[in-house]
């Protein structure tokens, strides 16, 4: 809860996040060494900075639910559903291509509200009806995707005003707007987790839900808030995707669910709850992006990339446990370890 002890090297590397940072640097150096003329260019840096925010934001949504020992498999469904809400407002209610900035903001607000409502739905299922999160969100994710299909008949919604492009493709003070959005959300989440009562309670609940109940923590409201937050993060991701694709469709980003889970876990979030830091997730996102762009430059097959992701995840875990071994405290292994 208080500041970490004086950062000495040994101490520092005892932290999973620090080790992940080292791995990230190694990956970066490796890619830079293998394809210096293509990887180490400003253009590549910007390209990567435009690419990762959309799924990185989804990883944040997974992170907050995982901290409670839950998971949100409906994020992609929510993202697409919300993007479609926004796009339908822009194209059906507003005059499409000519819609002004007011319409844009209104549609964004509606999308966020949609994300919150979807999150609330998940939250009620989990907190009040007691469904296991993995199934509740698997089912609700199908429903959200289904709604997105039903709203549109499955086709893409297009014909937006030019201002839609800004969120996903614009730059502000030389920085890509989606990167800024991600930065703000990550910082915000990190802040919420470490500096607010809500964040503390989320982690305590994740560590032992029963004890949280006995400690008079408002469990139901807590879970509601967590899933609403997750839904709203997903909505933002949906808006970024919509801007990047200049269209909205029910099946965009299908592969992001697993990717987001992978990133959160790689980032050191304990999937059984109670531990996780945003900085770890950010490092994991960057590592993944360096790897995937680097391998693309090297014209390595995308399947090899999948192979490497899986290997990386396991490698990081092996490194982490080796370190615990050295401290010889099997009885003090974290909760997830016993699974």
């Amino acid at each position: 809860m208080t500041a970490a002890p004086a950062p000495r090297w040994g101490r520092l590397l005892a932290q999973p996040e620090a080790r992940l940072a080292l791995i990230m640097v190694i990956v970066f150096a490796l890619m830079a060494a293998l394809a210096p003329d293509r990887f180490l260019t400003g253009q590549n840096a910007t390209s990567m900075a435009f690419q990762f925010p959309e799924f990185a934001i989804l990883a944040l949504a997974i992170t907050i639910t995982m901290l409670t020992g839950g998971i949100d498999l409906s994020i992609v469904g929510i993202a697409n559903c919300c993007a479609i809400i926004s796009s339908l407002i822009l194209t059906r209610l507003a005059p499409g291509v000519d819609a002004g900035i007011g319409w844009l903001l209104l549609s964004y607000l509606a999308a966020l509200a949609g994300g919150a409502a979807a999150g609330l739905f998940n939250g009620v299922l989990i907190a009040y009806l007691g469904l296991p999160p993995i199934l509740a969100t698997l089912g609700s994710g199908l429903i959200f995707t289904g709604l997105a299909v039903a709203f549109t008949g499955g086709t893409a919604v297009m014909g937006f005003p030019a201002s839609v492009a800004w969120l996903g493709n614009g730059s502000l003070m030389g920085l890509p707007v989606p990167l800024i959005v991600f930065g703000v959300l990550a910082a915000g989440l990190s802040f919420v987790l470490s500096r607010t009562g809500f964040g503390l309670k989320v982690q305590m609940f994740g560590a032992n839900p029963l004890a949280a109940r006995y400690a008079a923590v408002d469990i139901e409201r807590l879970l509601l808030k967590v899933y609403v937050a997750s839904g709203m993060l997903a909505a933002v991701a949906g808006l970024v995707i919509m801007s990047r694709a200049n269209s909205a469709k029910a099946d965009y980003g299908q592969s992001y669910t697993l990717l987001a889970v992978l990133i959160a876990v790689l980032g050191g979030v304990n999937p059984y709850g109670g531990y996780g830091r945003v900085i770890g997730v950010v490092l994991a996102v960057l590592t993944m992006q360096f790897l995937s762009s680097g391998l693309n430059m090297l014209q390595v097959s995308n399947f090899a990339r999948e192979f490497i992701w899986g290997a990386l995840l396991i490698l990081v875990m092996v490194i982490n446990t080796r370190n615990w071994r050295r401290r010889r405290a099997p009885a003090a292994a974290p909760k997830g370890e016993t699974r």
Partner: protein
Amino acid sequence: MSWLSRNETLVAGVILAFCVVGAALDPNFLSIPTLMDLLRAGIVLGILAVGVLVVLISGGIDVSTTSLAIVALYVTTLLVQGLAPEMGWPAAFLVAVAVGAALGAVNGVFIAGLGLPTLIVTLGTLSLFRGFLLTFVGDDLISNLPRGLRDFSRAMMIRGENADGSFYSLPWAFAFLVGVVALTWALLYRTMLGRQVFAIGGSMESARRIGIPVRRVQFLVFVYVGALGGLAGIIHAALARVANPQDLLLNQQLSVLAAVVLGGARLEGGTGTLTGTLLGVALIVLVSNSLIVLGIPNTFQSIAIGLLILLGTGLPAWQARRTQRRAA
């Protein structure tokens, strides 16, 4: 817990209700061809679900089984085609089971040997297995399967003729599901190894303390699940008559997990029944294979499946909560 509030009963109730609605909407719904189609659709899912059930009971989770199954089916097909194309199907099945067991052992080494959490390891191997297959083994679809497998896919356990002269049939592959269920039941409930699986799922620390070889049991669990995965994979390939390295069976992983949890297995480990799992599989198969028949428009199909999953999990969860409120 009375039988009324058990998961099994509730899921069976949902299935029954669905059948009643189905029969009301379409008189042909309750018919032998429908039953055969559904049983057939449940074979591969069922075998995979039994494997996942065993892992859940042992206190772990396995999200790599479909990926493993695809690798096993493809590698086996390549091996058989390359080495002994005239090999009979039993030998090919043994190869697939061995490949699956070997891949399961990979999971086992990381989980039991190095003590890594099961979710993370299997999440890793989910990508790893598939990536390995497509990068290093091959990515071409094989549609002319070796003779043995083709023979197997044509071997029917039950065959009959409909009024209109068309056939209905149930392949022998179904016997494998029955066999797997029987074998797993015997292992879980009639051997000490099986009881140890329950014990480590209930409390791993306690198991360690009374001297259960926890790592060995965990390792065996993953090998067994791998073997079942291999079997499911080769049956899938034989029935589909194609070995597809990019088979969309991959996307069934969550359905498999959903089926097992629908059937009452707890994600925390230590509990779960085969009956429940089979009912869970039945519900998922029934729903996802009846929407066209019931005339539910394409656009609403995923909503319908989603609602049924929520209903299937929601009822027992709500029940459990009520009894818990009453008791605690």
